């Protein structure tokens, strides 16, 4: 603390005068002759102590009043040094999650850069600075501030949610072996979400100061997409839109699939999650959803969705012609020539590229070629689908061997192992079906009407069922099973399409069932990915090159790792495209990438909650408007003088009250007079 006009402090010596006078002077009152002092002396001895106390109180009040006034005149100032010590290590943790984009007017990216640059300008050598962004990027400790400034200028707000606990861990690790003052400055909008997994109960022992620079604004309303999904068998997609705020918001949704666009208006109640169904003309290709709500966080106002079949309605049927005939007919019966069906014999299937097809139908009685199982496995894990009929002459053991690849890391691909063939004395009919399953959902509960003429004379019995049974005979024997492998699915029938086994392939139900199977397997929405999160994918068997195309069309070659996987981090939302090249074949896979929907929740964290999570750190939160004042070496006169002035006024008030109380006692004399 210092004084602008310290010479006024000399006057403080004068304060001792009234005290000395009070202590040593003999008071002289107004001389009054009085007939007898008998009662006066007695009265004085009764009340003398109280008078002394009151006199002392008044003396103290007046002395304090004088003291306060002199201090105010001296111009007291709090000299606060900048928190950035020259000997210290400073780490800027920067919240570059997309919630930071919630800013009207000037790009919030630019605003954040300005705030960071300004904070950086207060750092003086030899202090060392490091930068850690919640999106993961790290700029190590340096004395070269201009380089750090350039880094800041280059770095925009990411489209990611960010990982605060990881950033904190990194920061603490970097500071662990350093000496001198250690400071972590977190530049954030104080969004609550990044703090969810933060817990540093031992932070206080690290001897690290934690400063939070609040760059956000309270009371921002936001609504955004949570997801878009497709229920197979339905005629449209469903968009879930969340109103994160506490105000009712009207919004308009537009869903477009290239050649078509559908719009709908709706009202979002505060905190509500609305599911909007939109009918779409076809279930192929890419769908983009966008909402307009007028809020200032736009990142979650768009959503990217695509159906699984990148290759369109292209089906590969593997099997002998006698076995695949009915499948081909059934597949074409509903879609006509639109659906491309490719027939390959088992012997010729060694060279196939399953990724070129949306669904594989396999009906084979012999062993599959070498490497077929692994090829199919990779295809399945990345979202491919397969439907399998055991061949007429297949042996259970041979079938099981075919789908149990030699590679140990590949599981048995079928939903169950075949055990033996059961022949019915009396033909069995279709019994229970999983009517809620997308396969049967379009039949609207009338499955029995369709299947009542279907009979089974023989069936494979099963062992080690690892999938879901979707259809059973009236005796409860499984007819159809489903199993998920990776992101794909496998359906297994327990019979071949042969007259000695069943008549199902003759019944009108069969093309309906096959079509539903195709819709179910190919029409499901592809997985969507989150911006900034890792995408790991098996490369199709035999792929020589993999290219990644960004939503802007920027091409980048990806390298396979030894496990034949590719890994990449799509940094922003949009339709990313993977291109797999092998010999003369080319397969595309669409990767719809969206922002983390939960990041749209702009609820702010309370400072006391931060203090709990970072125990013992003594968290200081500074609004961005106050940052310059906080970081500069400054004189805070405005904070002391008013306080002192208030104190002086309070003292004056107390004295006036006390003196009034005393004078009101004098009024008592009138009453006494009246008494006498």
């Amino acid at each position, binding site marked *: 603390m210092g004084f602008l006009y310290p010479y006024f402090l000399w006057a403080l010596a004068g304060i001792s005068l009234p005290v000395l006078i009070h202590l040593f002077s003999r008071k002289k009152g107004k001389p009054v002759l009085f007939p007898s002092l008998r009662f006066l002396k007695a009265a004085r001895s009764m009340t003398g102590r109280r008078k002394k106390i009151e006199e002392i109180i008044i003396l103290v009040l007046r002395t304090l009043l004088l003291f306060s006034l002199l201090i105010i005149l001296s111009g007291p100032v709090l000299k606060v040094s900048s928190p950035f010590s020259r000997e210290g290590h400073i780490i800027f943790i920067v919240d570059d999650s997309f919630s930071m984009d919630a800013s009207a007017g000037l790009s919030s990216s630019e605003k954040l850069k300005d705030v960071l640059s300004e904070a950086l300008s207060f750092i003086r050598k030899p202090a060392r600075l490091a930068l850690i962004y919640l999106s993961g990027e790290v700029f190590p400790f340096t004395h070269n501030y201009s380089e750090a400034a350039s880094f800041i200028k280059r770095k925009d707000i990411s489209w990611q949610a960010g990982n605060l606990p990881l950033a904190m861990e990194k920061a603490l690790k970097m500071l662990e072996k350093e000496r001198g003052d250690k400071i972590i400055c977190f530049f954030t909008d104080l969004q609550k979400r990044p703090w969810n997994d933060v817990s540093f109960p031992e932070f206080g022992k690290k001897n690290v100061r934690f400063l939070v620079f609040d760059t956000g604004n309270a009371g921002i309303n936001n609504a955004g997409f949570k997801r878009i999904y497709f229920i197979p068998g339905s005629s449209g997609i469903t968009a879930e839109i969340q109103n994160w705020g506490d105000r009712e918001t009207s919004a308009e949704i537009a869903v477009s699939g290239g050649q078509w666009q559908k719009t709908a208006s709706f009202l979002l109640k505060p905190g509500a999650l609305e599911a909007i169904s939109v009918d779409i003309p076809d279930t192929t290709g890419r769908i983009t959803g966008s909402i307009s709500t007028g809020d200032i966080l736009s990142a979650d106002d768009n959503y990217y969705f695509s159906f699984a079949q990148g290759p369109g309605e292209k089906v590969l049927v593997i099997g002998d012609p006698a076995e695949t005939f009915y499948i081909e007919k059934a597949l074409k019966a509903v879609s006509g020539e639109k659906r491309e069906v490719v027939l390959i014999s088992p012997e010729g299937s060694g060279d196939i590229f399953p990724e070129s097809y949306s669904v594989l139908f396999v009906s084979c009685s012999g062993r599959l070629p070498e490497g077929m199982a692994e090829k199919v496995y990779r295809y399945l894990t990345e979202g491919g689908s397969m439907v399998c009929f055991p061949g007429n002459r297949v042996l259970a053991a041979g079938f099981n061997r075919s789908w149990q690849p030699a590679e140990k890391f590949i599981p048995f691909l079928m939903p169950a192992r075949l055990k033996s063939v059961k022949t019915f004395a009396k033909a069995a009919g279709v019994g229970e079906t999983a009517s809620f399953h997308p396969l049967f959902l379009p039949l609207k509960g009338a499955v029995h009407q369709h299947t009542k003429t279907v009979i089974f004379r023989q069936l494979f019995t099963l062992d080690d069922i690892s999938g879901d049974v979707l259809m059973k005979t009236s005796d409860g024997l499984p007819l159809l099973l489903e199993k998920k492998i990776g992101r794909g699915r496998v359906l297994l029938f327990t019979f071949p399409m042969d007259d000695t086994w069943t008549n199902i392939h003759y019944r009108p139900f069969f093309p309906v069932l096959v079509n539903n199977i195709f819709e179910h397997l190919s029409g499901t929405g592809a997985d969507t990915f989150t911006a900034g999160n890792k995408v790991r994918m098996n490369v199709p068997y035999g792929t020589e090159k993999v290219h990644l195309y960004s939503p802007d069309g920027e091409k980048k070659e990806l390298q396979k790792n030894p496990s034949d996987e590719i890994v990449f981090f799509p940094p922003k939302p949009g339709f990313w495209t993977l291109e797999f090249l092998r010999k003369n074949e080319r397969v595309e896979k669409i990767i719809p990438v969206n922002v983390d929907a939960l990041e749209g929740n702009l609820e702010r964290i309370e400072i006391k909650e931060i203090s709990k999570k970072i125990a013992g750190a003594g968290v200081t939160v500074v609004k961005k408007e106050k940052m310059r004042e906080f970081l500069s070496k400054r004189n805070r006169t405005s904070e002391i003088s008013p306080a002192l002035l208030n104190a002086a006024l309070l003292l004056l008030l107390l004295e006036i009250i006390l003196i009034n109380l005393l004078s009101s*006692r004098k009024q008592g004399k009138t009453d006494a007079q009246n008494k*006498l």
Partner: protein
Amino acid sequence: MANNNIFDPGLLVKFSNLPLIAKTVVEGFISGLHKSPHRGFSVEFSEHREYTPGEDLRYLDWKVFGRTDRFYVKVFREETNLKAYILLDTSNSMNYGSRSVTKLQYGVMLASILSYLMVKQKDAVGLVTFDTEVREFIKPMSTVSHLQNIFGALEKTEAGGETSLGTVLNRIALNIKKRSLIILLSDLMDDQGEIIRGLSHFRHRHNEVIVLHLLDPAEHELPFDGDCEFRDMESGERVLAGVPYVRKAYLKLMQEFLDSIRKSCGENRIEYAMTSTDVAFDSFLHSYLKSR
């Protein structure tokens, strides 16, 4: 309270002619009484008469009723040979006057008025002035020329010395041989026990005693402000006191003293009346005689 009339002590004190003051007040007072029920000072029991319904019950003789079971009322007659002594305290404390009249001046005027009144009723009146000692002793006589002596003595009266009421009253009591009416004019600024003992001495000698307690308004109001250095008029002792702090306690003590004196007088069959020096003489006489 002081009025702007002939009974106002503040006005009367401006006249130095005591006989004139006395005459003015007494004549004015008596003319104002008309059919006054007051009996005055000079009355003495003469005989009993049978009670007639409607008569004032105050004069019923209860002792006779106790003996005879019959109601008799006492009949008074004017006494022509009553001897009265007016005892005037002239101690220094009596010289105090916060307004235009000191207690002594008030006492002098009151003594002259009473003297005039009694001589006018053919009663003998004497005067004793005292502080620690008896300063003047005039034996009672009922002549007008004697009245001049009293006025002369009163005009010469000056305050001086401390109060020693108990001692001096005992001494005076010894000098009064014949049964008399004793009227004490004093501020009673002495030990209460001593005062009562002195007055009781008169009662033992079969004298009627009337105490007229004179106080200055300032003594029962303490109307000062701030810190005052009070100096005792008799001893010269000084006391510094913040009046706002002590007033309440002082007034309480003063009231207790007055109540105590009044009670002790009552217990000793001594008539007691207190007056303030700002009270007009007619008001005082009126209220006093009414209470007798």
